[in-house]
């Protein structure tokens, strides 16, 4: 089994890749996927801490994992609402390119 640091690093790496995707990509749907990736990466951190923050009885601290459930649920809801908005946008503008969403600025 790898060490906590290794898990955290992988988690951070995934988080950073997700961030990179958000920054680089222009397709809103892909950006949204990248955001989901970031959330999952954060989940990995939580689970890793949960595993290594053992309680008095030596078992993992399940509070962390419970939090992961909440996050997954929230993420799912977010995806649902987000995709609905994106669809509405596409219907109105026929685009999912962020470059074209600059009617408001300054």
């Amino acid at each position, binding site marked *: 089994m790898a060490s906590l640091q290794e898990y955290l690093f992988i988690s951070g790496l995934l988080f950073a890749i997700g961030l990179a995707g958000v920054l680089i990509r*222009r397709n809103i749907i892909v950006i949204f996927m990248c955001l989901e990736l970031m959330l999952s990466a954060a989940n990995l951190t939580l689970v890793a801490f949960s595993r290594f923050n053992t309680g008095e009885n030596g078992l993992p601290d399940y509070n962390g994992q419970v939090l992961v459930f909440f996050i997954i649920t929230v993420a799912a809801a977010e995806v649902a609402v987000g995709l609905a908005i994106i669809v509405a946008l596409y219907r109105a503008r026929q685009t999912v390119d*962020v*470059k074209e*969403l*600059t*009617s*408001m*600025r*300054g």
Partner: protein
Amino acid sequence: MPEFFSWSILLLPLCSAAVIQLLLREMAGIAVRMSVGSAATTFVIALVMLGSEDRTLAVQWATAGSFHIEIGLIIDDLSRGMMIVVTGVGLLVHLFSLAYMKEDEARARYFAGLSIFMFSMTGIVLASNFIMMFIFWELVGFSSYLLIGHWFQKNSAAEAAKKAFLVNRIGDFGFMIGILMLWGILGTFAFREMSESTTVIAQNSSTLTGIAVLLVFCGALGKSAQVPLHVWLPDAMEGPTPVSALIHAATMVAAGVYMLFRLQLSAGIEIFEGFAGTTIAWIGGITSLLAALMATQQDDIKRVLAYSTLSQLGYMVMAVGLAGEHSAEAGMFHLYTHAWFKALLFLGSGAVIYACHHEQNIWKMGGLFQRMRKTTVTFAVGTAALMAIYPLSGFWSKEQILEAAHHDQPVLFWLAIIVATLTPFYMTRLFIVAFLGKGRGHGAQAAKEVPPLMLYPLFALSCMAVIAGFTPVAETLSPAFHHPSHSFSLANPVFLISLAALLVGIGSGILVYRGRDADPLEGNTIFKIFRNKFYFDEVYLVLVRVFQNAVAIVVHFLDDFIIGNLLVGGLVRTASGVGNLFRKLQSGNLQGYAFLFGAGIILIIYLTVFAR
């Protein structure tokens, strides 16, 4: 004498002025009577006061904690005598004006001005402390401004009034500093308390005291029109002639001398010893010389008299500055006699001008003797008094000054003798050109004798010009009179020299000007300088241009440019520039936002975690 009278002599003219200005502007007749009435009343009070005992009255004017500024009346020999001069000449000038200004539309304003002047001058004379004196000092300047500018529609009059005020302000600048410094040294403003503080002077460096006295003298420099602040007085002749007689010959211009004498009397003559007194005396001497020289080449009758006034004032200032045993008294004595005969001369010239339909150039007069004999006689009396011909009043006082000068400062004595030569010279010139010979201008040819209302004051004044110098009269009326210790015999070298100077002056005057139609000295280079008043005005004009207007323009530019544009404008531009930068970042592009988010995150993490 009840206090009420003492105060009323001060307040009566003020009430008169206020009432005229506020209520009687449209009713000139009543206004004129009111003003003359108040002048007469104050003259009577001044006469009554002659018999009263010395005293000081005071009320608090401004109070700040333990500090007070008082308005007070100091009644002693000096002020009583001075009041006679002021109210006496004042009354006569009022009367003269009745006729002289009869046709002026703004008569009411004129008489209100005269009343204000009477009030202010009384205030100076009776002032019990320096602050009060300064108050009235400013007020006489103001009334002088009003009266010089009486015919404000004329550019020259308006400019002259402004100039008089401003030059006086410059003098007052020094005056106020001097007052404040003397306050610091003596610890009091009140004249009565100064003598108690003279011991303090001993502790302080005499240099400081000297500087303070010189600064106070600056006030006199302006008011009594001493070089280099004399430039306003000739221009002030733009005012109505009675005003010139009252203010710019007899009383106000003498206020500087009076003030110096008051200071000398209160704080002791010691503070005039040393360089302060010397400087004052020299300035007086130089003024009298320069003015006399300038007077020789003036064509305007009033300007000749004005320069002569300057010259005589120089005499007085010199006498006060000599700080000899009784030299200052001599100066005051001269002030007193000069007031009468110079007022006479001015009113006489006023009568002439009036008769000649406002012609002032003496070369356009001539032959007036035939047409207005009474006036000419009075004018001649005044001329003689000014020339100091025995036994007229001018003789006695001038002789005292020469004595004092001879005693204390021989160099100044010789300077004074030159002036004593020049005075008869230019007065002879004036008299010959204007009154003798034949008429050269229309005005002069059409001239006829002036109405009696003008003549009576002339008579009264010539009377005073004759008798004022005699000891019994002088003892009663003169502000400060000291029996001459010297004799008027040919054995006295001073008398001898001055007599010679007189004769030389008259003689050369007759020689040069008898029967002339134009000034024979006009083309002469040296006399050209005199005619152009030593170019004082021109130099001042340049100075004002350079040091005031140019500086003002530069400062105004800098004010706009540096403070307005660079500093303030710069700040505003910076703010809006930064604001626009922020707005550029707000590109509307989601990627850009995410990018900035990311950058912000990196920055914040760096600052939180690593920048510790």
